[in-house]
């Protein structure tokens, strides 16, 4: 196998890795906010459910969660869903990362001084306006470093997709390395993750800088 065929085969894997990465963010960033808000719900059962969900997600390995999402429908409910591999993978990642983002959001929301809410209330803002105009922008700035950490972890976690035999860059590297008795695929995969994280860090730093216009 020439280097260029190796690269093009692994390039497909890189695209798949990128698909898992971006779909996970797209789903979990907003879902995390919904979870964070539900955790402050007035209804005790809702709060209890959310707390349970967060502790289960944080208390079990993502790899196990992925297997449950993939095999669960069949073993638990006897359902046979066609083309379930990729959806199961994305559900697993989104539901997992939403729990972590929810905790970050919650910490951020709770760090905003109560005086901000009171000033907004006296000025006559509605609850929604207060959240969207006054609280959320300040929360976003405060949680940026923690979100960056989580996104970098996600870049590396995408390799767990191999659990469901999804052919992303890490799985392909293992296969090609075994069949070609070559160390090269691992090197390529390593460079790929490293560069991906470099890009993430660079992008997040730009965003943080852009939000540095106030303190």
């Amino acid at each position, binding site marked *: 196998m020439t280097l260029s065929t190796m690269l093009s085969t692994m390039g497909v894997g890189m695209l798949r890795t990128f698909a898992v990465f971006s779909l996970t963010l797209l789903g979990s960033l907003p879902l995390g906010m919904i979870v964070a808000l539900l955790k402050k719900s007035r209804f005790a059962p809702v709060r209890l459910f959310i707390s349970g969900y967060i502790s289960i997600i944080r208390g079990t390995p993502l790899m196990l969660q992925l297997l449950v999402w993939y095999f669960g429908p069949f073993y638990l409910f006897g359902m046979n869903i066609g083309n379930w591999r990729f959806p199961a993978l994305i559900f697993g990642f989104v539901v997992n990362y939403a729990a972590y983002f929810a905790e970050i959001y919650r910490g951020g929301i709770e760090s905003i001084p109560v005086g901000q809410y009171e000033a907004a209330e006296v000025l*006559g803002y509605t609850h929604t306006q207060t959240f969207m105009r006054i609280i959320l922008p300040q929360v976003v700035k405060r949680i940026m470093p923690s979100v960056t950490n989580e996104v970098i972890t996600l870049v590396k976690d995408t390799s767990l997709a191999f659990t469901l035999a999804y052919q992303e860059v890490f799985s392909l590297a293992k296969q090609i390395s075994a069949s070609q008795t070559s160390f090269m695929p691992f090197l390529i995969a390593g460079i790929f993750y490293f560069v991906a994280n470099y890009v993430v860090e660079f992008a997040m730093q730009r965003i943080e800088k852009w939000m540095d216009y106030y303190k």
Partner: protein
Amino acid sequence: MILEMKNIQKHFGDHEVLRDISLSVDKGEVVSVIGPSGSGKSTLLRCATFLETIDGGEISYMGNCAVKTKPDGEVSYVDAKDLRRFRNYYELVFQQFNLFPHYSILKNLTDAPIHVQGRSKEQAEQTAMELLDKMGIADKAEAYPYQLSGGQQQRVAIARALAMDPEILFFDEPTSALDPELTGEVLKVIRQLAESHMTMVVVTHEMPFAKAVSNRVIFMADGVIVEQGDPEQVFDNPQEERTKQFLRVFER
């Protein structure tokens, strides 16, 4: 009558913080509230501005009742939507300013007029610039709160309140968080407002200021109004032993 509070009661747990306090404020009146810390002054303002709910009594603005207590002791507020209408009548200036740090000074002054009161951007900005000019900080319009001194931030907070064109303005120790050399610039602004007959209730520890600007002084202790009257009367000729005792501390 702009504000009428009748027989207000408020407790936190079994700690009675306000016991049967009544306070009315007429248009153009400047009322100072003085008293030892913990006597319930902030709580009184927070009840008047609906940041705290009362446990008994009645509050009306401009003759409209916002909360009343039925004979059986049940306290009933108007619903949330109507309560927001009442918020148009008053504004509150906090000890800690509570400016919005992510908004420029100009936006701090225009955001609520535009998004709460539905004014046009041009009109809101024009009003804001006039107010900043009056406060002597028109050159800071594009700055952010963290770039301003405490005294300037508090003047912005006052301007933000005035931008809403309230009937009455409450101040909760507006200079207590400031370095001593910065209190003067804030007191001067409040004094100008008093001269232009803005209706105000000012909780303060600045006795000479209270004496100079107010039409009426209220001395509170332990959740009750111990004494009230003209500034000359309360400061120079207090009737109650508790008042004399409190004022003696400030004479030194």
